């Protein structure tokens, strides 16, 4: 088939009706623009919210749940081994929050090449003293270097230096809300009371704001050593190991494996924040469906315009057929018309979509909850542009399919006789 000829005929037919063509193409441009902008913005927002929780969550967390021992004394008795024993009011004795043998666990993690990194942690429940009032709070004992590297601690630090936590002894980084309650600022010394009743002075070396008020009002960070001192525990007392994996999708499988291997509890991120995932995917589905709806509407526009064009061009179609163009050629001509509307309209849409999302990217967006964000978030994922151009071509192809078929079936005898 002579594609060059087909394309040049299609072009002449298009240009002869360039106003209609333009309207059809603008329809496609508009929907692709909205599609790109919507997805870039929604995904940007998703990423931001993901960052809020998922970035700070370990992919796998090793810990020990305080719970009753699975094997109760009666199970040791040979006399009752074949009985079904009902035991009431079991207490959780003998089980400790501490992860046993955490040194060798960490050694094993270091050698596991699926692991991106890990950060040990322990928490201490304390009271912050504000005059005669005691404020309930939590101290997270962390390895500040690992914490910054894996969980972007720096992003949330609004004053002070995170390394001071390591370098200054008995130091603490307070949540912003907590610091406000305590009227404390960087450089001040505050007092806490441990659960054992001891009073302990700590120097404030920084303030953080996580974006989640509940956390900022309650939590603070200290080094592992300081926290162990506060709790009066030994140097190897660790209650949590937070692991980041290279591939987040492997988390559930690896969590199961570690629970077996290390004899601890292990929680994967998918289980820990499943409701969060749902929110993200709902937003994505909404953006796709709005974008595709717009495209379908544009598709009907193209369908109408092509149908009208075919009625107008009946004579031309009859002549083309009489002079030797087959139904297939005519079909191709109208498909080329439809696809070029899709191509140029879609291309314009990608361009304007990019422009519009860059404009949104410049709009200031300041919120106390998100200290690192200054403008509306936009995700410039090239995948959206690929999907957009793909959809614009598919929609226009489908919109052109029926009119093109109709054109190919035009009987020249009827047209010529009808004159």
């Amino acid at each position, binding site marked *: 088939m002579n594609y060059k000829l087909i394309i040049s005929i299609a072009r002449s037919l298009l240009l*002869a009706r360039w106003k209609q063509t333009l309207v059809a193409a603008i329809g496609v441009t508009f929907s692709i623009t909205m599609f790109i902008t919507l997805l870039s913005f929604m995904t940007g927002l998703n990423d931001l919210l993901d960052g809020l929780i998922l970035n700070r969550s370990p992919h796998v967390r090793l810990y020990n749940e305080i719970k009753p021992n699975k094997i109760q004394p009666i199970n040791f008795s040979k006399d009752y081994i074949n009985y079904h024993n009902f035991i009431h009011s079991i207490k959780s004795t003998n089980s400790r929050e501490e992860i046993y043998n955490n040194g060798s666990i960490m050694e094993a993690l270091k050698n596991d090449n699926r692991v991106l990194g890990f950060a040990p942690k322990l928490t201490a429940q304390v009271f912050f003293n504000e005059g005669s009032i005691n404020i309930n709070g939590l101290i997270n004992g962390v390895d500040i270097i690992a914490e910054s590297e894996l969980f972007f601690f720096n992003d949330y630090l609004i004053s002070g230096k995170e390394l001071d936590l390591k370098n200054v002894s008995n130091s603490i980084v307070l949540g912003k809300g907590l610091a406000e309650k305590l009227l404390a600022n960087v450089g001040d010394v505050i007092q806490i009371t441990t659960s054992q009743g001891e009073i302990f002075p700590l120097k404030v070396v920084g303030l953080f704001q996580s974006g989640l008020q509940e956390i900022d009002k309650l939590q603070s960070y200290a080094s592992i050593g300081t926290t162990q001192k506060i709790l009066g525990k030994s140097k190897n007392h660790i209650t949590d190991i937070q692991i980041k994996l290279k591939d987040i999708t492997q988390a559930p499988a690896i969590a199961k494996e570690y629970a077996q291997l290390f004899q601890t509890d292990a929680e994967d991120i998918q289980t820990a924040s499943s409701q969060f995932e749902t929110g993200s995917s709902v937003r994505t589905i909404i953006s796709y469906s709005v974008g595709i709806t717009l495209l379908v509407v544009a598709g009907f526009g193209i369908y109408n315009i092509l149908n009208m064009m075919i009625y107008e061009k009946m004579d031309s179609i009859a*002549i083309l057929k*009489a*002079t030797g163009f087959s139904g297939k050629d005519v079909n191709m001509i109208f498909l080329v018309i439809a696809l070029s509307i899709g191509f140029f309209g879609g291309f314009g849409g990608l361009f304007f979509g990019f422009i519009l999302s860059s404009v949104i990217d410049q709009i200031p967006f300041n919120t106390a909850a998100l200290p690192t964000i200054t403008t509306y978030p936009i995700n410039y994922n090239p995948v959206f542009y690929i999907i957009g151009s793909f959809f614009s071509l598919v929609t226009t192809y489908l919109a052109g399919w029926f009119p093109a078929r109709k054109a190919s079936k035009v009987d020249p005898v009827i047209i*010529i006789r009808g004159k």
Partner: protein
Amino acid sequence: MSEIILEAQHISKSFHDPVTIKVLNDISFTINKGEFVSITGKSGCGKSTLLYILSTMDTDYEGDLLIDKQSMKNKKEADLARLRNEKIGFVFQFHYLLNEFSVLQNVMLPGLKLNKYSEQEVEHRAMEHLKTLDIQKLYSKKANQLSGGEKQRVAIARALINDPYIIMGDEPTGNLDKKNSEIVFEIFKQLCDEHNQTLMIVTHDQSFSKKTNRIIEMEDGKIISQ
């Protein structure tokens, strides 16, 4: 001189809308190379219907049609389109040019579709035909800016572009004044005499048909003299 170009064998056709009417009844004849044939008859006797069948555009008939000794029965639509493109040139009463294209492009289109010569060659040949028909000055005009007589000459140039076996016309002078009709007739005559071109023209015009080599006269779907 007696090479057969086209042969109609017992062609019959009926329309079934709303009642069955037999419009063509057992039509048989042959046309030899270089003949200038006119088909005449009263209005409604089936001339146009016959021409659409002979032109391969209408495939719904009984009997057989041979063009260049090949049967047209059971040929696919695409093959028939190719055959029309290569072997048949058309001139209609209403001029049927493509208004989106210039005169030159209109003449060139069937040539480009045939794809036998390069684009430059097709253009050159088109210009030659326009020159013989004395309309080369109009080559860059849009088709809808021409007069009726000019349009008809462009249509003839288009019919000639692929050196067809036969040129078919359905009342090509039906819409022209006397002077233009004569010009068109002279062109046909010249093509026949100088280039041994075969022509088959349906016409009402007695003065036109009288001047042709052979008259096929029809009445009520039958040939009454040829």
